[in-house]
């Protein structure tokens, strides 16, 4: 199942072009079904750029402290980050991280209209059952810093 969130027109710094569709956060993971404790899952979304080019993008996925982002480079499923790529990748906090963040490097070109950018991180569901609200966030020069562009999805752990 995919959940699509359209960025409301009120979130843009400059009024949007009404002839174009609005940008989207398309949530693609984790699955909507209940998942087992202590299992590996992926939290992911695709940023569909549809209205205007986006500059200085920061994409964030925030789990809760009951989950832990899998350690190691292989856990960072995408986009590829580091030297030679448009992105730097980091996790917070250092111990048992639950937040993944991709920051566009200063030299990177704007994300073009018509393009789609997937972000994905692997995590362990932890040893606590319940419902956990995951936050998907996009920041960009074109989006109001005072009114965060965020949407959420509930992870259900058995």
């Amino acid at each position: 199942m995919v959940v699509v969130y359209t960025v409301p027109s009120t979130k843009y710094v400059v009024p949007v072009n009404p002839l174009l569709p609005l940008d989207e956060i398309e949530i693609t993971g984790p699955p909507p079904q209940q998942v087992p404790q202590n299992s590996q899952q992926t939290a992911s979304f695709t940023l569909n750029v549809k209205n205007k080019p986006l500059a200085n993008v920061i994409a964030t996925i925030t789990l809760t402290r009951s989950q832990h982002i899998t350690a190691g480079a292989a856990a960072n499923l995408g986009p590829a980050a580091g030297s030679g790529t448009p992105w730097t990748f980091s996790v917070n906090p250092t111990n048992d991280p639950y937040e993944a963040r991709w920051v566009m490097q200063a030299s990177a070109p704007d994300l073009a209209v018509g393009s789609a950018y997937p972000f994905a991180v692997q995590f362990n569901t932890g040893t606590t059952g319940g419902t956990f609200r995951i936050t998907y966030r996009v920041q960009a020069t074109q989006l109001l810093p005072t009114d965060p562009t965020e949407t959420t999805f509930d992870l259900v752990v058995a």
Partner: protein
Amino acid sequence: MKFNVPSARYGYALTAAQPTDLLDVQIQSEGSSANAGLARLILDPQSPGKPENQGNDLSLTNVRVSISAPRCNLATLIPKKEDVIDADVISGGHVAFWNVGDVFKGSQQQYSVNFVLTGPAHSRFEFVLQAAELPNPVRLQVDVSAGFQC
């Protein structure tokens, strides 16, 4: 339902090692009526506090918590009004709030209110956390139906 406040929500920069605050919202039935329940927000503060406060255990300041329960009758606030700076049920009896001042790292806080669902079968509750360190309130919405469990 548990929720960690994203680090970008704070009005100051967190370092890579600093955690954020956890909110746990719970809605459970109480008594024999399918429409009676308890709404609870548990705040587990772990954020480091404003830079000028770092070095002590202060996490959030000027904290206000509210629970909005449309078409419900609210009663029995915990903690009671006398035990915090201020607390009450307002807005026609549909919103409970607590002004609690400062909270310290690791000092788990619980705020709860009894409710009876009196309106339609579905109601969207909103749990709100405000603090000087959070430029925008943290809002968590949960849909509640008769015979609920959250």
